[in-house]
């Protein structure tokens, strides 16, 4: 019996010490990031499933950085989906707070999640180190190619007649970006945005699948990711949230304004470091990102994805975020969804 107990104790000791030594390891790694940055591979996290706007942006950065040899360590993209980006945001703002080797690609949800009442994320852009804004994109209202809705007005009229008859879907939770893009025209059209029926999926890809499969009547998504599906003739884009018409596949698509809806919504995308990122690391990235946006490789990525370039350096980006934060609060207040 005694022998048995000793064996158990020894086994547990072994197990516990294994747990303990990996704890030391991870802390040690986070602290020893001082002079020669970067010393190991860098991870850019897209807080969504693959194929969405964040994911494509993260992959474009990683690809440009390695092709141009601006960074000789490899840059890896990881997908961490959930809660419209809020799940990973919490991890980023707490667990990775000092980790110079993890960056995050984000867009307006970093402001929206922090300001909305339901499903509030306690962490906002102030819990990060904004490094640069890279692109801008717009929202798009999309229906299936054989849909009865020919224009944005058709959709809005149908909602006005019977809100329960139209299912709007998007790749993120209620109160997040796809939802805002989707209900914005309805709100401006004088409808109660709360009556619009919204179904959230895990990422834009699943939302498109729901549209193609007839499980959603209308989806709100990013203008840039919908181009490929439009080219294949599966979907019809009714309107985009830009101030003027876009290029590429979407030249024929009217803006909200042209459809008589006085609204705009810009989806900026930027890259963030953790809040307590070392100055060495944030300076390093500011410099590398400024170089990157000038390269042909990056421009090719922009062209390919149908994004418009909009570069802001760390300081300008922070100021811009402050302004945008106010705009979002106004919009959410108008929708009755503010914190």
């Amino acid at each position, binding site marked *: 019996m005694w022998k048995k107990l000793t064996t158990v104790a020894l086994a547990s000791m072994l197990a516990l010490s294994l747990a303990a030594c990996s704890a030391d390891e991870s802390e040690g790694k986070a602290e020893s990031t001082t002079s020669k940055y970067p010393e190991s591979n860098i991870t850019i996290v897209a807080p969504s499933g693959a194929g969405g706007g964040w994911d494509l942006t993260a992959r474009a950065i990683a690809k440009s950085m390695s092709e141009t040899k601006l960074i000789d360590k490899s840059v890896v993209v990881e997908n961490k989906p959930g*809660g419209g980006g809020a799940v990973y945001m919490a991890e980023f703002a707490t667990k990775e707070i000092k980790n110079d080797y993890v960056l995050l690609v984000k867009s307006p949800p970093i402001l929206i999640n922090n300001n909305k009442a339901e499903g509030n994320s306690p962490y906002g852009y102030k819990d990060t180190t904004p490094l640069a804004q890279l692109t801008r994109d717009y929202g798009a209202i999309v229906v299936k190619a054989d849909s009865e809705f020919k224009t944005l007005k058709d959709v809005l009229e149908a909602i006005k007649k019977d809100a329960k008859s139209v299912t709007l879907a998007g790749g993120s939770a209620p109160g997040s970006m796809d939802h805002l893009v989707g209900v914005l025209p309805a709100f401006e059209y004088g409808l109660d945005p709360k009556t619009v029926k919204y179904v959230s999926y895990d990422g834009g890809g*699943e939302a498109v699948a729901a549209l193609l499969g007839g499980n959603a009547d209308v989806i709100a998504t990013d203008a840039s990711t919908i181009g*490929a599906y439009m080219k294949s003739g599966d979907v019809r884009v009714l309107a985009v949230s830009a101030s003027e018409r876009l290029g590429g596949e979407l030249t024929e698509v009217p803006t909200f304004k042209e459809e008589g809806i006085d609204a705009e919504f810009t989806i900026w995308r930027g890259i963030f470091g953790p809040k307590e990122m070392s100055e060495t690391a944030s300076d390093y990235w500011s410099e590398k990102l400024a170089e990157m946006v000038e390269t042909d490789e990056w421009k090719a990525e922009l062209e390919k994805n149908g994004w418009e370039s909009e570069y802001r350096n760390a300081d300008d980006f922070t100021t811009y975020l402050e302004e945008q934060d106010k705009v979002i609060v106004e919009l959410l207040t108008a929708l009755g969804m503010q914190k």
Partner: protein
Amino acid sequence: MSTLQFLADGFGIAFQWHNLLFAFVGVIIGTAVGVLPGIGPMSGVALLIPVTATITSGMPTSAAAASSIILLAGVYYGAMYGGSTTSILLNTPGESSSVVTTLDGYQMARQGRAGAALAISAIGSFCAGVISLIGLVLLAQPLSNVAIKFGPAEYFSLMLLGLAAVSGLAGKSMTKALMMTVFGLMLGTIGIDAVSGIARFTYNQPILFSGLEFLTIAVGLFALGEVFNTILERDKEDGAIAKINRILPTKQDMKDSAVPIVRGSLLGFFIGVLPGAGATLASFFSYITEKKFSKNPESFGKGNIAGVAGPESANNAASGGAMIPLLTLGIPGSGTTAILMGALIMYNVQPGPLLFDEHPDIAWGLIASMFIGNLMLLVLNMPLVRVFAKVIQTPKKYLLPIIIAISFFGVYAVQYTTFDLYLLLGCGVAGYLLSKNDYPVAPLVLALVLGPMIENNMRRALTISNGEFSIFFTKPLSLAFLIVAALWLLVPMLLKLKGRSVIVEDEG
């Protein structure tokens, strides 16, 4: 051009010597990735993307894309071959899709039939690979059309069917199995809710925001639980492991496995086609189905070869099925296919409806290479069975520390958090206590996988229907699943009322 013509062209590409080499390297790495716990197919593929990009950088874009996707896909299905190894030998699932293999695979190993179990899972994987590829060639277009029709209501009913079938995983007592199911469902609610974004049961601990990791819990309950069990119950267990009599399966083994392999392959293929369902679910469904169809279901969990052959075929077939929505719709059905899609996009190849028109060389080259890769895997894995089967003869005093170490490294490599290591330990203790008192842990693990999917899809469906529960009955597919689920539960009860002897539902 006809499909056959395209396929022939595909083989032309796949048989180019460098592509043969790429496929070969891919499947070797895949096997290693599958055997090593911790590196799953997802991280394996992700890690190799930059490597393949460098190797293929000198080639024209289209050829480079074809070559690297051949290698990366090789890693993906290769991992499904290797994944069963540690499940069978050490009761330590390396991938979530091989969790269910531990149930009978490990028992077979303890009876000295490790060789048979490993060999049958390689053979099953090969058959499944070929069957799913034939399905991919013939049915890609029609199936992708059906797959997208699968809405929230259909998913909900399918998952509910899975949960109803949980009785198939019950041990002696149905009541205990149900208790474990409910416990698993409750654990599944921890984390930020994906539909509303609200945190549940997280107590403001960010570590809980993304929920409990399925693999940590499975490894803890199965592997560590077994380690504690072996140490504490040593007096009884000594010498329990029989000598290995033969490496290859007997004629009887092959006969017993043939039908489960075919059934598992078909089931796995169709579940794999559905975006979001995946290999883990396929292997569970296959196990439950085999037990239901078996003439002696009481032998499951005690080393029935069908319990290895079915699920191992299913998870491999699912990886073939998952290529359909990826290639034809541009919709990744699982984490690994999402990364494969990223790799294609890197080469400016957009998977989707236009892929087969714009880049037939890549699409068909990949499909043809998967036939070749599967053959390579079979040839590669059969000799390895001999080597691996010896592992089981290692004395306990060396084997147990190895299992503990592998479990810890495996979990840490996936999660990178020490929280998961403590969770692993806790689950190990729980696993020991539960199995000592005859509480089956498999229903808990299944409920943990199914719970969030059931909930999210139910809420989506109800939003679409404006809160009308009738949506689950008016959609034909959904209704069909619900009827099967109801029959699954009711038929044994009715038979019991009639006084027939039914094993599964017996009260312990």
